[in-house]
């Protein structure tokens, strides 16, 4: 059973398909990142799963059921506000009552401590900063210890410290076995946090898979940096023909050689070439394509198509 399964999920606004027949499967216990630019349709998609937007067509299953599993779900919606007249503590108490979850005072305070809001427990939400509101948003999503957690842009607009707290929290929750589905336009965040990724553009998924799969598919070159002992003429003449045969491009430097190759299977060959030439290799570093590069590449592919 998948945590999330969608089939042809579509949302149409004013004759425009904002989300266009999305078929997606998210494994239980995984951290799934939904990546895309602003307006790509990420929030509309997550809001359909969270029960905030009615799909125009298509279907979805959450934890194997075709209905919203509110008791098993936690949702941090984007662009949401809290009640001005309630404190953080009162919010969590009210939301727990909505879910029929009996949370004693100590557990509410623990939850606030988990999101580093314990000192603001009795402060009214209207006095909260944007980052504090995000943290409270995450706390309210965790009230029922959900099996699946939807986080829509959990770190957008928050300061660096709050980002770290939120990332740490997501990692902790993930370790507890909760499936996390997060949308973001922050490439680093998705790369750091997620097991699987889908990239969305103009309402359609343009790429999906694990980071390794995406790298293999969209990046066919690796840049290998070899830090070595200073090369003499004899070593150079031995190395040059071997490396030029293996690599697409070689940039020579006395103590650092940069080699561009088609795949990682060539790295041991390169290492052997240096050893044959009696060069001491101190360090080999491989520059893998970042998600940003993949993202740009997918964009380029789409434009050329």
């Amino acid at each position, binding site marked *: 059973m998948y945590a999330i399964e969608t089939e042809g999920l579509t949302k149409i606004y004013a004759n425009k398909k904002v989300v266009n027949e999305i078929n997606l499967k998210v494994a239980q216990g995984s951290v799934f990142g939904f990546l895309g630019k602003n307006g790509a349709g990420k929030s509309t998609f997550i*809001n359909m799963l*969270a*029960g*905030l*937007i*009615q799909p125009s067509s298509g279907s979805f299953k959450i934890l194997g059921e075709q209905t*919203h599993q*509110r008791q098993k*779900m936690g*949702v941090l*919606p984007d*662009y*949401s*506000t*809290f*009640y001005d*007249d309630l404190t953080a503590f009162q919010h969590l108490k*009210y*939301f727990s*009552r*909505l*879910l029929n979850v009996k949370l004693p005072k100590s557990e509410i305070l623990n939850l606030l401590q988990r999101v580093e809001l314990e000192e603001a427990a009795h402060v009214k939400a209207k006095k909260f900063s944007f980052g504090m509101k995000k943290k409270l948003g995450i706390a*309210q999503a965790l009230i029922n210890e959900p099996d699946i957690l939807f986080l829509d842009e959990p770190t957008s607009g928050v300061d660096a410290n709050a980002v770290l707290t939120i990332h740490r929290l997501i990692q902790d929750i993930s370790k507890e076995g909760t499936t996390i589905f997060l949308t973001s336009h922050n490439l680093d965040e998705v790369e750091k946090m997620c097991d699987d990724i889908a990239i969305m553009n103009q309402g359609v998924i343009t790429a999906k898979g694990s980071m390794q799969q995406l790298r293999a598919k969209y990046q066919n070159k690796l840049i290998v940096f070899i830090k070595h002992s200073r090369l003499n003429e004899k070593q150079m003449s031995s190395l040059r023909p071997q490396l030029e045969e293996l690599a697409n491009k070689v940039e020579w430097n006395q103590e650092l050689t940069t080699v561009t190759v088609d795949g990682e299977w060539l790295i041991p060959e390169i290492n052997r070439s240096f050893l044959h030439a009696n060069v001491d290799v101190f360090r080999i570093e491989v520059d893998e394509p970042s998600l940003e590069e993949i993202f740009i590449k997918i964009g380029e592919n789409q434009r050329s198509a």
Partner: protein
Amino acid sequence: MLAIGLREFQNLFKSIRSIIIILFIFSVTLGIAKLINNYKEVLSEVGGLEGDIYMGGLLLLIIGAGPLFVTSLSHNAINQEVHSRTIRFLATKVSREKIVLGKFLGIAMYWMVCILVASLLILPFTKGFYFHQFMEALIFILYFVGLAIFLSTLITKPGMTMFLGSVLAILLPIIGLWSLWSENLIIDLVSYLTPYYYYSVGEHIYTYVVLIFPILFVLGSLLLIRKKDF
């Protein structure tokens, strides 16, 4: 549903506007009761002084000003949550139906308590609790609670429901009272949709017919909210 109802109920008691309305209802009800009490000898000579005449004062106040009280306090029961986006937290935790029913329940409870307290305040004059008059006042208020919930679900902007609610709260009593003497067919037909016609018949049972309207209004709201995107 109960949690939403309870919060709505508590919020209504917290607002300044609601406190003013409660004080107004209590003071006018007590004032009318005292006035009747001062002239009880004259009144008993003309038509007999029944205890329900004191309750009549409260009922008149509810029929006259109740629509405006309800719409001014609860015109934005649903759409304020949508407008401020707090509904995004509610809708991910409870069904949309429970949001509407909870809101209706909370507002209805508030008015039930207000009318009950007003009825108890005049107990020293009435010397008894007049259940039928209490129910008449409550059912009348429920009509407008249902209407406020319906408008608040139908219209997204709280400002618009404030305006429309106030217009209807003034217009409906005028049409209702006009229809009592008018022979205009349209006015007559519209009057069947207001509670005034049923209250003018003079039979208690007719006032219970009015209960159909808040049920219809709430059902309408339930249908509308299912299709809404938050």
